[in-house]
Protein backbone atom coordinates (compact mmCIF):
# COMPACT_ATOMS: atom_id res chain seq x y z
CA UNK A 1 0.00 0.00 0.00
CA UNK A 2 2.71 2.43 1.09
CA UNK A 3 4.84 1.31 -1.85
CA UNK A 4 2.23 1.96 -4.47
CA UNK A 5 1.52 5.39 -3.11
CA UNK A 6 5.22 6.20 -3.11
CA UNK A 7 5.47 4.94 -6.66
CA UNK A 8 2.48 7.05 -7.62
CA UNK A 9 4.12 10.01 -5.98
CA UNK A 10 7.38 9.63 -7.87
CA UNK A 11 5.47 9.23 -11.15
CA UNK A 12 3.40 12.31 -10.51
CA UNK A 13 6.62 13.99 -9.46
CA UNK A 14 8.05 13.56 -12.95
CA UNK A 15 4.96 15.08 -14.57
CA UNK A 16 5.06 17.98 -12.12
CA UNK A 17 8.76 18.53 -12.90
CA UNK A 18 8.13 18.74 -16.63
CA UNK A 19 5.31 21.20 -15.99
CA UNK A 20 7.58 23.31 -13.88
CA UNK A 21 10.91 23.20 -15.67
CA UNK A 22 9.71 23.31 -19.22
CA UNK A 23 6.74 25.59 -18.59
CA UNK A 24 7.79 28.41 -20.94
CA UNK A 25 8.12 26.17 -24.02
CA UNK A 26 5.09 24.17 -23.02
CA UNK A 27 3.06 27.38 -22.78
CA UNK A 28 4.03 28.48 -26.31
CA UNK A 29 3.29 25.09 -27.85
CA UNK A 30 -0.03 24.86 -26.00
CA UNK A 31 -1.16 28.35 -27.04
CA UNK A 32 -0.33 27.49 -30.66
CA UNK A 33 -2.45 24.33 -30.37
CA UNK A 34 -5.35 26.25 -28.83
CA UNK A 35 -5.32 28.96 -31.47
CA UNK A 36 -5.94 26.27 -34.07
CA UNK A 37 -9.22 25.10 -32.52
CA UNK A 38 -10.63 28.49 -31.51
CA UNK A 39 -13.04 29.96 -34.04
CA UNK A 40 -13.63 33.64 -34.55
CA UNK A 41 -16.90 33.69 -32.65
CA UNK A 42 -15.29 32.71 -29.37
CA UNK A 43 -13.88 36.16 -28.88
CA UNK A 44 -10.91 36.08 -26.57
CA UNK A 45 -7.80 38.23 -26.70
CA UNK A 46 -4.34 36.70 -27.12
CA UNK A 47 -3.34 38.21 -23.78
CA UNK A 48 -6.27 36.72 -21.96
CA UNK A 49 -5.63 33.29 -23.46
CA UNK A 50 -1.98 33.52 -22.47
CA UNK A 51 -2.67 34.49 -18.87
CA UNK A 52 -5.36 31.80 -18.55
CA UNK A 53 -2.98 29.18 -19.95
CA UNK A 54 -0.10 30.25 -17.74
CA UNK A 55 -2.25 30.17 -14.63
CA UNK A 56 -3.63 26.74 -15.47
CA UNK A 57 -0.16 25.23 -15.97
CA UNK A 58 0.94 26.58 -12.62
CA UNK A 59 -2.18 25.36 -10.78
CA UNK A 60 -1.94 21.98 -12.47
CA UNK A 61 1.72 21.70 -11.53
CA UNK A 62 0.96 22.38 -7.85
CA UNK A 63 -1.93 19.94 -7.74
CA UNK A 64 0.05 17.15 -9.39
CA UNK A 65 3.05 17.84 -7.15
CA UNK A 66 0.80 17.31 -4.11
CA UNK A 67 0.69 13.67 -5.17
CA UNK A 68 -3.07 13.36 -4.73
CA UNK A 69 -4.31 10.83 -7.20
CA UNK A 70 -7.97 11.85 -7.46
CA UNK A 71 -8.87 15.15 -9.12
CA UNK A 72 -11.98 15.27 -6.90
CA UNK A 73 -9.91 15.79 -3.74
CA UNK A 74 -9.17 19.05 -1.88
CA UNK A 75 -5.67 19.34 -3.39
CA UNK A 76 -7.38 19.91 -6.73
CA UNK A 77 -9.83 22.57 -5.50
CA UNK A 78 -7.89 25.42 -7.16
CA UNK A 79 -7.67 23.64 -10.51
CA UNK A 80 -11.37 22.78 -10.49
CA UNK A 81 -12.30 26.30 -9.39
CA UNK A 82 -10.24 27.78 -12.18
CA UNK A 83 -11.76 25.47 -14.81
CA UNK A 84 -15.28 26.15 -13.52
CA UNK A 85 -14.79 29.92 -13.93
CA UNK A 86 -13.25 29.50 -17.35
CA UNK A 87 -16.04 27.20 -18.47
CA UNK A 88 -18.81 29.50 -17.20
CA UNK A 89 -17.34 32.56 -18.85
CA UNK A 90 -16.84 30.70 -22.12
CA UNK A 91 -20.41 29.40 -22.02
CA UNK A 92 -21.66 32.98 -21.70
CA UNK A 93 -19.24 34.35 -24.32
CA UNK A 94 -20.63 31.92 -26.88
CA UNK A 95 -17.81 29.39 -27.15
CA UNK A 96 -18.93 25.98 -28.38
CA UNK A 97 -18.66 23.03 -25.95
CA UNK A 98 -15.85 21.68 -28.13
CA UNK A 99 -13.87 24.91 -27.94
CA UNK A 100 -14.32 25.00 -24.20
CA UNK A 101 -13.25 21.40 -23.59
CA UNK A 102 -10.32 21.81 -26.01
CA UNK A 103 -8.72 24.20 -23.53
CA UNK A 104 -7.83 21.13 -21.50
CA UNK A 105 -7.54 18.51 -24.23
CA UNK A 106 -5.20 20.58 -26.41
CA UNK A 107 -2.62 20.45 -23.62
CA UNK A 108 -2.20 16.72 -24.21
CA UNK A 109 -0.04 16.81 -27.30
CA UNK A 110 2.56 19.38 -26.14
CA UNK A 111 2.70 17.83 -22.66
CA UNK A 112 3.05 14.26 -23.92
CA UNK A 113 5.84 15.30 -26.27
CA UNK A 114 7.77 16.71 -23.33
CA UNK A 115 7.09 13.71 -21.11
CA UNK A 116 8.61 11.58 -23.85
CA UNK A 117 11.74 13.70 -24.11
CA UNK A 118 15.24 13.40 -22.63
CA UNK A 119 14.93 13.36 -18.85
CA UNK A 120 12.92 10.15 -18.81
CA UNK A 121 14.77 6.89 -18.34
CA UNK A 122 12.98 4.20 -20.33
CA UNK A 123 10.04 3.47 -22.61
CA UNK A 124 7.93 1.90 -19.83
CA UNK A 125 8.26 4.93 -17.63
CA UNK A 126 7.37 7.19 -20.51
CA UNK A 127 4.26 5.17 -21.23
CA UNK A 128 3.24 5.28 -17.58
CA UNK A 129 3.74 9.05 -17.43
CA UNK A 130 1.73 9.67 -20.57
CA UNK A 131 -0.99 7.33 -19.32
CA UNK A 132 -1.25 9.11 -15.96
CA UNK A 133 -1.20 12.56 -17.49
CA UNK A 134 -3.85 11.45 -19.94
CA UNK A 135 -6.12 10.18 -17.15
CA UNK A 136 -5.84 13.51 -15.34
CA UNK A 137 -6.50 15.65 -18.42
CA UNK A 138 -9.45 13.47 -19.44
CA UNK A 139 -11.04 13.90 -16.01
CA UNK A 140 -10.48 17.64 -16.12
CA UNK A 141 -11.80 17.89 -19.68
CA UNK A 142 -14.99 16.08 -18.71
CA UNK A 143 -15.36 18.27 -15.65
CA UNK A 144 -15.02 21.37 -17.85
CA UNK A 145 -17.71 20.09 -20.19
CA UNK A 146 -20.07 19.37 -17.31
CA UNK A 147 -19.70 22.88 -15.91
CA UNK A 148 -20.19 24.30 -19.42
CA UNK A 149 -23.38 22.28 -19.85
CA UNK A 150 -24.74 23.43 -16.50
CA UNK A 151 -23.94 27.07 -17.23
CA UNK A 152 -25.70 26.88 -20.59
CA UNK A 153 -28.76 25.36 -18.96
CA UNK A 154 -28.82 28.12 -16.36
CA UNK A 155 -28.43 30.73 -19.06
CA UNK A 156 -31.27 29.26 -21.11
CA UNK A 157 -33.64 28.94 -18.19
CA UNK A 158 -32.89 32.52 -17.18
CA UNK A 159 -33.61 33.70 -20.72
CA UNK A 160 -36.84 31.71 -20.76
CA UNK A 161 -37.85 33.36 -17.52
CA UNK A 162 -37.07 36.80 -18.95
CA UNK A 163 -39.08 35.97 -22.01
CA UNK A 164 -42.04 34.86 -19.93
CA UNK A 165 -42.18 38.22 -18.27
CA UNK A 166 -41.40 40.15 -21.42
CA UNK A 167 -44.18 38.51 -23.32
CA UNK A 168 -46.99 39.36 -20.94
CA UNK A 169 -47.37 43.10 -20.58
CA UNK A 170 -50.88 43.97 -19.51
CA UNK A 171 -51.69 47.44 -20.84
CA UNK A 172 -54.41 49.78 -19.71
CA UNK A 173 -56.11 51.22 -22.77
CA UNK A 174 -58.66 53.32 -20.92
CA UNK A 175 -60.33 53.47 -17.54
CA UNK A 176 -61.80 50.02 -17.08
CA UNK A 177 -60.30 48.56 -20.26
CA UNK A 178 -57.22 46.33 -20.26
CA UNK A 179 -55.45 44.68 -23.17
CA UNK A 180 -53.09 41.72 -23.22
CA UNK A 181 -51.14 41.63 -26.47
CA UNK A 182 -49.86 38.09 -26.91
CA UNK A 183 -46.86 37.42 -29.11
CA UNK A 184 -45.33 34.14 -30.28
CA UNK A 185 -46.11 30.66 -29.08
CA UNK A 186 -48.71 30.29 -26.35
CA UNK A 187 -47.35 27.34 -24.44
CA UNK A 188 -48.76 26.34 -21.09
CA UNK A 189 -46.34 28.24 -18.86
CA UNK A 190 -46.53 31.47 -20.84
CA UNK A 191 -50.31 31.37 -20.88
CA UNK A 192 -50.32 30.70 -17.17
CA UNK A 193 -48.12 33.73 -16.46
CA UNK A 194 -50.12 35.92 -18.85
CA UNK A 195 -53.42 34.84 -17.33
CA UNK A 196 -52.23 35.47 -13.79
CA UNK A 197 -50.97 38.96 -14.52
CA UNK A 198 -54.16 39.81 -16.40
CA UNK A 199 -56.41 38.63 -13.56
CA UNK A 200 -54.35 40.54 -11.05
CA UNK A 201 -54.55 43.76 -13.06
CA UNK A 202 -58.31 43.34 -13.45
CA UNK A 203 -58.59 43.32 -9.68
CA UNK A 204 -56.16 46.20 -9.17
CA UNK A 205 -57.77 48.45 -11.73
CA UNK A 206 -61.36 47.32 -11.27
CA UNK A 207 -61.59 46.87 -15.04
CA UNK A 208 -64.77 45.71 -16.78
CA UNK A 209 -63.33 44.62 -20.11
CA UNK A 210 -60.19 42.68 -21.02
CA UNK A 211 -59.00 42.33 -24.61
CA UNK A 212 -56.83 39.32 -25.50
CA UNK A 213 -55.02 40.37 -28.64
CA UNK A 214 -53.55 37.47 -30.63
CA UNK A 215 -52.34 39.47 -33.64
CA UNK A 216 -48.81 38.35 -32.77
CA UNK A 217 -49.67 34.65 -32.44
CA UNK A 218 -48.83 32.98 -35.77
CA UNK A 219 -50.58 29.65 -35.22
CA UNK A 220 -53.76 28.89 -33.33
CA UNK A 221 -54.04 25.14 -32.89
CA UNK A 222 -56.24 23.20 -30.46
CA UNK A 223 -53.80 23.68 -27.59
CA UNK A 224 -53.62 27.44 -28.14
CA UNK A 225 -57.41 27.55 -28.41
CA UNK A 226 -57.72 25.63 -25.17
CA UNK A 227 -55.41 28.12 -23.44
CA UNK A 228 -57.38 31.06 -24.80
CA UNK A 229 -60.69 29.57 -23.69
CA UNK A 230 -59.30 28.95 -20.23
CA UNK A 231 -58.21 32.58 -19.96
CA UNK A 232 -61.59 33.84 -21.19
CA UNK A 233 -63.37 31.70 -18.60
CA UNK A 234 -61.14 33.00 -15.82
CA UNK A 235 -61.84 36.60 -16.86
CA UNK A 236 -65.57 35.88 -16.85
CA UNK A 237 -65.31 34.41 -13.38
CA UNK A 238 -63.83 37.72 -12.24
CA UNK A 239 -67.00 39.40 -13.44
CA UNK A 240 -65.34 41.10 -16.41
CA UNK A 241 -66.00 40.80 -20.10
CA UNK A 242 -63.42 39.33 -22.47
CA UNK A 243 -62.87 40.07 -26.13
CA UNK A 244 -60.40 38.17 -28.33
CA UNK A 245 -58.94 40.34 -31.07
CA UNK A 246 -56.49 39.76 -33.88
CA UNK A 247 -58.32 36.80 -35.39
CA UNK A 248 -57.27 37.16 -39.02
CA UNK A 249 -59.44 35.59 -41.75
CA UNK A 250 -57.06 32.66 -42.27
CA UNK A 251 -57.04 31.95 -38.52
CA UNK A 252 -60.83 32.12 -38.40
CA UNK A 253 -61.09 29.55 -41.22
CA UNK A 254 -58.58 27.25 -39.58
CA UNK A 255 -60.36 27.38 -36.23
CA UNK A 256 -63.59 26.37 -37.95
CA UNK A 257 -61.89 23.39 -39.64
CA UNK A 258 -60.35 22.33 -36.37
CA UNK A 259 -63.83 22.22 -34.92
CA UNK A 260 -63.01 24.48 -31.99
CA UNK A 261 -66.18 26.01 -30.52
CA UNK A 262 -65.51 29.50 -29.27
CA UNK A 263 -69.05 29.51 -27.88
CA UNK A 264 -70.24 32.96 -26.92
CA UNK A 265 -66.75 34.46 -26.82
CA UNK A 266 -66.73 37.86 -28.52
CA UNK A 267 -64.10 38.02 -31.26
CA UNK A 268 -62.87 40.89 -33.41
CA UNK A 269 -60.49 41.05 -36.37
CA UNK A 270 -58.39 43.89 -35.00
CA UNK A 271 -57.43 45.45 -31.71
CA UNK A 272 -58.99 48.74 -32.91
CA UNK A 273 -62.36 47.03 -33.44
CA UNK A 274 -62.12 45.39 -30.03
CA UNK A 275 -61.27 48.72 -28.40
CA UNK A 276 -64.24 50.43 -30.07
CA UNK A 277 -66.52 47.68 -28.76
CA UNK A 278 -65.00 47.90 -25.29
CA UNK A 279 -65.59 51.65 -25.21
CA UNK A 280 -69.21 51.22 -26.15
CA UNK A 281 -69.66 48.44 -23.58
CA UNK A 282 -68.40 50.83 -20.93
CA UNK A 283 -70.76 53.57 -22.11
CA UNK A 284 -68.46 55.60 -24.34
CA UNK A 285 -68.06 56.45 -27.99
CA UNK A 286 -65.33 58.06 -30.02
CA UNK A 287 -66.39 61.08 -32.06
CA UNK A 288 -64.48 63.43 -34.27
CA UNK A 289 -64.38 66.97 -32.86
CA UNK A 290 -63.66 68.84 -36.06
CA UNK A 291 -64.66 67.23 -39.34
CA UNK A 292 -62.58 69.78 -41.31
CA UNK A 293 -59.31 68.52 -39.86
CA UNK A 294 -59.87 65.22 -41.54
CA UNK A 295 -61.16 66.75 -44.79
CA UNK A 296 -58.00 68.73 -45.29
CA UNK A 297 -55.72 65.79 -44.53
Amino acid sequence: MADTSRAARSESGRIARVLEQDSANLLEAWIAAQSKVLSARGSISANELRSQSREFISLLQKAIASGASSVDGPDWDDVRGFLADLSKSRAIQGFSPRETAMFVFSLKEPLFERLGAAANPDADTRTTDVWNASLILDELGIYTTEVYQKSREQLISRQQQDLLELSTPVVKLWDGILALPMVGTLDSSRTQVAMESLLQRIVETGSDVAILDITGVPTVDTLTAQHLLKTVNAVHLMGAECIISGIRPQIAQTIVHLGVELGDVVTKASLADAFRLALSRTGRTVTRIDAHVNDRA
Partner: protein
Amino acid sequence: MTVLRCEIVPVRSQQDVVAVRQSVRSLAVAQGLSLVDQTKVVTAASELARNTLDHGGGGTARLEAVIDNGRTGLRLTFEDRGPGIKDVDLALTDGFTTGNGLGLGLGGAKRLSNEFDLWSRAGEGTRVTITRWR
Protein backbone atom coordinates in the same frame (compact mmCIF):
# COMPACT_ATOMS: atom_id res chain seq x y z
CA MET B 1 -45.32 12.04 -57.44
CA THR B 2 -41.80 13.46 -57.30
CA VAL B 3 -40.11 14.69 -54.15
CA LEU B 4 -38.36 18.01 -54.75
CA ARG B 5 -37.03 18.52 -51.26
CA CYS B 6 -37.01 16.46 -48.11
CA GLU B 7 -36.15 17.31 -44.56
CA ILE B 8 -36.34 15.00 -41.56
CA VAL B 9 -36.53 16.70 -38.19
CA PRO B 10 -36.78 15.30 -34.65
CA VAL B 11 -39.93 15.75 -32.58
CA ARG B 12 -38.68 15.29 -29.04
CA SER B 13 -39.52 18.52 -27.25
CA GLN B 14 -41.82 21.49 -27.20
CA GLN B 15 -39.11 23.46 -29.02
CA ASP B 16 -39.04 20.85 -31.77
CA VAL B 17 -42.78 21.33 -32.30
CA VAL B 18 -42.20 25.07 -32.73
CA ALA B 19 -39.35 24.29 -35.15
CA VAL B 20 -41.63 21.96 -37.18
CA ARG B 21 -44.20 24.74 -37.51
CA GLN B 22 -41.54 27.17 -38.70
CA SER B 23 -40.05 24.74 -41.22
CA VAL B 24 -43.49 23.83 -42.57
CA ARG B 25 -44.36 27.49 -42.93
CA SER B 26 -41.26 28.35 -44.93
CA LEU B 27 -41.73 25.24 -47.07
CA ALA B 28 -45.35 26.25 -47.72
CA VAL B 29 -44.29 29.76 -48.69
CA ALA B 30 -41.60 28.35 -51.00
CA GLN B 31 -44.18 26.08 -52.64
CA GLY B 32 -46.43 29.05 -53.32
CA LEU B 33 -49.35 28.07 -51.08
CA SER B 34 -51.88 30.81 -50.38
CA LEU B 35 -51.94 32.42 -46.94
CA VAL B 36 -55.02 30.42 -45.96
CA ASP B 37 -53.45 27.15 -47.12
CA GLN B 38 -50.18 27.96 -45.37
CA THR B 39 -52.09 28.51 -42.15
CA LYS B 40 -54.03 25.28 -42.60
CA VAL B 41 -51.02 23.09 -43.24
CA VAL B 42 -48.97 24.69 -40.46
CA THR B 43 -51.82 24.16 -38.01
CA ALA B 44 -52.29 20.53 -39.09
CA ALA B 45 -48.54 19.99 -38.69
CA SER B 46 -48.68 21.51 -35.24
CA GLU B 47 -51.44 19.10 -34.18
CA LEU B 48 -49.66 16.02 -35.53
CA ALA B 49 -46.27 17.01 -34.14
CA ARG B 50 -47.81 17.54 -30.73
CA ASN B 51 -49.52 14.15 -30.89
CA THR B 52 -46.17 12.55 -31.84
CA LEU B 53 -44.62 14.19 -28.80
CA ASP B 54 -47.43 13.89 -26.24
CA HIS B 55 -49.01 10.55 -27.16
CA GLY B 56 -46.24 8.84 -29.16
CA GLY B 57 -43.43 9.71 -26.75
CA GLY B 58 -41.50 11.53 -29.47
CA GLY B 59 -40.50 10.64 -33.01
CA THR B 60 -39.70 12.30 -36.31
CA ALA B 61 -41.31 14.53 -38.88
CA ARG B 62 -40.51 14.15 -42.57
CA LEU B 63 -41.27 17.34 -44.45
CA GLU B 64 -41.38 17.07 -48.22
CA ALA B 65 -41.97 19.45 -51.09
CA VAL B 66 -43.64 17.37 -53.81
CA ILE B 67 -44.89 17.74 -57.36
CA ASP B 68 -47.46 15.55 -59.09
CA ASN B 69 -48.73 16.14 -62.62
CA GLY B 70 -47.72 19.78 -62.42
CA ARG B 71 -49.37 20.29 -59.01
CA THR B 72 -47.03 21.32 -56.24
CA GLY B 73 -47.69 20.63 -52.59
CA LEU B 74 -46.43 19.57 -49.21
CA ARG B 75 -46.37 16.04 -47.85
CA LEU B 76 -45.75 15.68 -44.14
CA THR B 77 -45.18 12.40 -42.33
CA PHE B 78 -45.16 12.09 -38.55
CA GLU B 79 -43.87 8.86 -37.13
CA ASP B 80 -43.32 7.46 -33.66
CA ARG B 81 -42.71 4.12 -31.98
CA GLY B 82 -45.03 4.82 -29.12
CA PRO B 83 -48.02 2.85 -27.83
CA GLY B 84 -50.02 3.17 -31.04
CA ILE B 85 -53.74 3.87 -31.35
CA LYS B 86 -56.07 1.01 -30.42
CA ASP B 87 -59.21 2.35 -32.07
CA VAL B 88 -58.44 4.69 -34.97
CA ASP B 89 -62.07 5.63 -35.63
CA LEU B 90 -62.54 6.55 -32.02
CA ALA B 91 -59.33 8.61 -32.01
CA LEU B 92 -60.60 10.53 -35.03
CA THR B 93 -63.89 11.32 -33.28
CA ASP B 94 -64.15 14.96 -32.29
CA GLY B 95 -63.87 15.39 -28.57
CA PHE B 96 -62.21 12.04 -27.92
CA THR B 97 -59.04 12.36 -25.88
CA THR B 98 -57.05 10.11 -23.60
CA GLY B 99 -55.18 13.14 -22.29
CA ASN B 100 -56.67 16.43 -21.25
CA GLY B 101 -56.82 18.13 -24.64
CA LEU B 102 -59.90 19.11 -26.59
CA GLY B 103 -59.66 15.88 -28.60
CA LEU B 104 -59.84 17.79 -31.87
CA GLY B 105 -56.28 17.58 -33.15
CA LEU B 106 -56.38 14.40 -35.21
CA GLY B 107 -59.76 15.04 -36.84
CA GLY B 108 -58.85 18.68 -37.28
CA ALA B 109 -55.59 17.79 -39.05
CA LYS B 110 -57.59 15.54 -41.38
CA ARG B 111 -60.06 18.31 -42.20
CA LEU B 112 -57.23 20.79 -42.80
CA SER B 113 -55.53 18.49 -45.32
CA ASN B 114 -56.31 17.34 -48.86
CA GLU B 115 -55.07 13.82 -48.19
CA PHE B 116 -54.79 12.02 -44.89
CA ASP B 117 -53.36 8.60 -44.14
CA LEU B 118 -53.08 7.04 -40.71
CA TRP B 119 -51.25 3.84 -39.90
CA SER B 120 -51.07 2.62 -36.34
CA ARG B 121 -50.67 -0.64 -34.50
CA ALA B 122 -50.98 -1.11 -30.77
CA GLY B 123 -47.55 -1.51 -29.23
CA GLU B 124 -45.72 -0.62 -32.45
CA GLY B 125 -46.31 3.02 -33.15
CA THR B 126 -48.13 5.50 -35.31
CA ARG B 127 -47.53 7.11 -38.67
CA VAL B 128 -49.67 9.91 -40.04
CA THR B 129 -49.14 11.34 -43.53
CA ILE B 130 -50.93 14.42 -44.81
CA THR B 131 -50.71 16.23 -48.13
CA ARG B 132 -51.75 19.75 -48.91
CA TRP B 133 -51.83 20.78 -52.58
CA ARG B 134 -51.37 24.24 -53.91
